């Protein structure tokens, strides 16, 4: 979620649409909103209302500096985890460009 907000502020339905496009990332679209609420409470995102061409104003979510730091930590942890799994599966040295996505590799 934080990664989706890395570039620019986005609104809830926009985030859901992008997550839904990736297979397996999202099972219940409605649970995104509680997650966004918790991220806001934790100070990782901020919100602002912006007018919409298609209807009522939308609540936009944007990363805070804390959110950016949390995202950077996750990326570091994820790389370490991925490299560890690749090592165990014997996939190191093949180059990440030619490898299938991580979830397919782990099956």
């Amino acid at each position, binding site marked *: *979620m934080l*990664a989706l907000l890395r570039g620019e502020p986005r609104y*809830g*339905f926009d985030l*859901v649409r992008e*997550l*839904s496009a990736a297979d*397996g*990332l*999202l*099972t*219940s*679209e*409605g*649970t*995104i*909103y*509680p*997650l966004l*609420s*918790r991220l806001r409470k934790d100070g990782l995102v901020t919100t602002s209302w912006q007018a919409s061409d*298609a*209807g*009522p104003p*939308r*609540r936009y979510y944007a990363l805070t500096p804390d959110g950016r730091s949390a995202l950077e930590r*996750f990326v570091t*942890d994820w790389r370490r*985890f*991925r490299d560890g*799994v690749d090592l165990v599966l014997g996939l190191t040295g093949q180059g990440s460009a030619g490898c299938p*996505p*991580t*979830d397919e590799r*782990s099956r």
Partner: protein
Amino acid sequence: MPVGLDHPVVATFLARLEAAAAGLPPGRRAELVAELREHLGEALAGVDGDEAAVRQVVERLGSPDDIVAAEEAVPVPVVPGWSPAAAVPVRWSRRSGPCCRWPSSCSRCRPCSWPAPQAVLRASRPGPCRPSPCRPIPHRPCRPIPPPDAHVPRSERHEFRRCSPRTSRPGPCRARPRRCGGLPRAQAAAPQRLTAQAGRSEVTIGSKTRLLWCERHQSWFSSGGAGDRQHSRRRS
């Protein structure tokens, strides 16, 4: 013709959501319902009157219970026993059981670190979620049972446990910790001194247990059997 929020399927979902969210703080409940209404408004904008398509939009949201339960979830980045190998940053799952055999009374276990739905990495194994194993709480040594004439505030009586290395040993939750609850109230108020030998007092708790107070050790020992042997060992 675009479908509105007054479509029966949508209206039913929103009513169920409001009912499920009754336990949330009023502000957050209104906010959550508004967010879902806004989401439905956007999602239904491209749907004509086809009821199957409307149902599909609503079903993609998940059940109202799951959505509300996600409000109370505590994110855990890495959960023991669960692998993020499936590489999914967001996935919701439901807890299927309590944290340990005595979830409410086991004081040796912290609250389960896997409560309710989580926004965590998807589990790599199929099936319902399992809670993470219990973790021991920091070890607190037993305290000696106070003399019968000592005033023990009621709120502190539960602190006096029957001293036993087993019950105070840190480690995974194996047994419900035994608590003596302090002396029975009536006897704590008016201790029954049966004998007052040199350096000893004796008190009977209930119909079975007799405790002997040893001034030298500043501790109570149960009379007979293991208590006497324990006292003898300490004396030597």
